[in-house]
């Protein structure tokens, strides 16, 4: 029967060594990104354990104060530039080509180069622990004038290495963003119009557009910072006529949108997973998709809310307070769309679904404190306190990292061909949710009481909440153990996955698990309907029944 020419044959058995070399296959690069990211996640997490270990008692008794400054600086930098961005780029690499039916990324070699920059600047950053004077210690935002002090006078110092690493990270991210945007715009399967594209691709497109618009501003600001630090210019030096607040503008023009770069793909993950596990179409698909771009537009004009206490004009405070609060509208659209999806659905509480629900709960909480922080008087009151730290960690760990874990459990069978263990997964989810809330919730009362961030010792009146937060942090540290156990053992000897273990709808689920190197190759199915047709019985692509029957026959024969 000639129908046997498609879908493609399953790939030869996986060869581990291809993950160690310069591969141009997006699926290999995706896994390289994710594994590298979790390597740095463990380092950044270890630093977090040291921070919370120090803060479990009011006295500065675990590490030296100057070492502590370096530790929180590197914790933030590593977690953002070496964990979150790489892990999301890994998901982009795995999901974008398979979801849109492309054989690979638009520029495979550029993709390879972008990935291999990550270990390079990672080593540069980790290496800064071992130079005289230690690593950068000005906080992850690296504000001048603190960041342009160079007391030892060495040309190679922690701060200079930090700036170079961030600049290289920017180069890598821009290379990735050019690739992702081109791939999404130009390489979609026949019939897949923009409004038939999965929401994850919409959010990836939105997030990568933000990278393209925002990152160059940070790079420009960082170049000027490096020149001030190392070559004696005075862009940010008040004594030479410079303006330290100018750096804050450059930094936040990128680094506020950077939060949307992180959270938008997670919105995409929520939008993919809630329909699968509640067996209902995504509520308000078009609005969810478009809200991503409203977030992009608004996200570019809110950055001054990080600078309310930095001496900006009152009209700017008012303006940016208003734009910041407006962000709650498109975000609210998405939250209600997810609730609408869940409402009356047949919920299946699998590990990925539990991570999504937990992430959504944390995100709503973070959104509420976000609106509080947008209010100028509240912001000035809690600026630079633990309230801000708590809010930020709810967004990043509570929502984004939980969403990323959900995505990893959900698509793990697709790209490894093995099922992750549900028991370990649920334990991981429980520990993560409990740990994150125990860790980050006490930071809010601490901030309201006035405990400043970035201190290694504090007044004993803050001790109670700090002990709770530290216990939560250690719980989070423990929560990684079942995750790593699960990933390693199920990848090696987990049960074989079928092509569609979750009974999900999407082009990636019409490929064998794991997909062959060029995905659909030349035989890309034609998309004939919107995604998320759960419950309608409507096929996603032409000849869907034949494709699925063929995949089942292949699996039965294997």
């Amino acid at each position, binding site marked *: 029967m000639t129908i046997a*020419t498609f879908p493609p044959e399953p790939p030869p058995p996986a060869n581990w060594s291809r993950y160690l070399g310069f591969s141009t296959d997006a699926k290999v690069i995706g896994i390289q990104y994710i594994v590298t990211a979790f390597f740095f996640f463990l380092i950044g997490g270890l630093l977090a354990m040291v921070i919370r270990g120090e803060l479990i008692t009011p006295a500065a008794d675990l590490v030296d104060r100057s070492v502590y400054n370096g530790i929180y600086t590197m914790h933030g930098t590593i977690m953002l530039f070496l964990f979150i961005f790489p892990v999301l780029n890994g998901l982009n690499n795995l999901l974008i080509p398979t979801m849109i039916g492309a054989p690979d990324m638009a520029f495979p070699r550029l993709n390879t180069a972008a990935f291999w920059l990550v270990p390079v600047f990672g080593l540069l950053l980790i290496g800064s622990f071992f130079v005289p004077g230690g690593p950068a210690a000005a906080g992850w935002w690296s504000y001048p004038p603190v960041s342009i002090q160079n007391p030892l006078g060495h040309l190679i110092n922690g701060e200079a290495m930090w700036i170079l690493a961030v600049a290289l990270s920017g180069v890598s991210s821009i290379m990735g963003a050019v690739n992702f945007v081109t791939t999404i715009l130009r390489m979609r399967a026949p019939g897949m119009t923009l409004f038939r594209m999965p929401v994850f691709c919409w959010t990836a497109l939105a997030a990568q557009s933000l990278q393209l618009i925002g990152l160059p501003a940070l790079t420009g600001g960082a170049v000027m910072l490096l020149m001030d630090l190392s*070559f004696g210019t005075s862009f940010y030096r008040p004594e030479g006529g410079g303006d330290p607040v100018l750096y804050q503008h450059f930094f936040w023009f990128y680094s506020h949108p950077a939060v949307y770069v992180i959270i938008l793909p997670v919105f995409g993950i929520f939008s993919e997973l809630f329909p699968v596990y509640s067996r209902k179409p995504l509520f308000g698909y078009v609005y969810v998709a478009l809200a991503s771009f409203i977030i992009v537009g608004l996200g570019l004009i809110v950055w001054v809310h990080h600078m309310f206490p930095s001496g900006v004009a009152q009209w700017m405070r008012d303006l940016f307070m208003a734009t910041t609060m407006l962000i709650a509208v498109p975000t609210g659209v998405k939250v209600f769309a997810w609730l609408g999806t869940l409402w009356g659905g047949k919920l299946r509480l699998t590990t990925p679904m539990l991570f999504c629900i937990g992430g959504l709960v944390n995100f709503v909480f973070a959104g509420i404190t976000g609106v509080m922080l947008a209010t100028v008087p509240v912001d000035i009151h809690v600026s630079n306190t633990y309230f801000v730290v708590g809010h930020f960690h709810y967004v990043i760990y509570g929502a984004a990292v939980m969403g990323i874990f959900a995505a990893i459990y959900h698509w793990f069978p697709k790209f490894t061909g093995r099922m992750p263990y549900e028991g370990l997964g649920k334990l991981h989810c429980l520990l993560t949710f409990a740990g994150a809330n125990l860790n980050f919730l006490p930071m809010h009362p601490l901030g309201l009481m006035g405990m400043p961030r970035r201190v290694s010792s504090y007044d004993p009146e803050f001790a109670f909440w700090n002990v709770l937060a530290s216990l939560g942090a250690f719980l989070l540290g423990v929560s990684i153990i079942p995750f790593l156990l699960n990933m390693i053992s199920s990848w090696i000897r987990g049960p074989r996955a079928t092509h569609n273990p979750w009974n999900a709808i999407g082009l990636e689920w019409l490929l064998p698990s794991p997909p062959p190197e060029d995905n659909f190759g030349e035989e890309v199915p034609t998309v004939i309907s919107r995604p998320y047709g759960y419950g309608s019985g409507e096929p996603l692509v032409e000849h869907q029944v034949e494709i699925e029957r063929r995949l089942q026959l292949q699996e039965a024969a294997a």
Partner: protein
Amino acid sequence: MSSSLPVTAPQSDKPHGHINHNLTGFIIFLCSESVIFLAFFSGYAILKTSALDWLPPGVEGLEWRTPLLNTAVLISSSGTIMLAEHYKARDKLWLFRGFWLLTMLMGVYFLIGQAVEWHGLAFGFTAGTFGGTFYLLTGFHGLHVATGILLMTIMLIKSFIPGNYAGGEQGVQATSLFWHFVDVIWIILFVLIYVWQ
């Protein structure tokens, strides 16, 4: 299985993975690259408008006549590169190479003019925010001019490969776009630095 099934998989009109996306990617990159100049320009404007003593002691301002001549050469080179593209589209490859080389030489002339100007200035890049921003902006732009010349050299060499343009090569178009971009940036830069004194 029913005999009405298709004999082969549905084929799309355009084969996937064989289309050249270089130009799309390059345009996206240029949009991104313009933001870094936007950052430098806005930084310059903010520092200049808020400065108490913008010019360092002993500096009266910038001489603008020679830079204006350089500007004229650079802007004209946008015209010559368009002519080059025009002849390439008509398969007159030698005329293409001639105008392409002329554009490169005009770029080199601009860079030399920039170097001569730098050499004759009485202030260095540590001379306050005036010196810092002047050298940063002109230097960063000069780096782009040099990159443009490098790209043009590569395209010139590639034009001698037989059948180079048969596979839908987009390098010439991309380089030309880059050159126009560098030109537009210079016009803004000239207005900001030399006209607004």
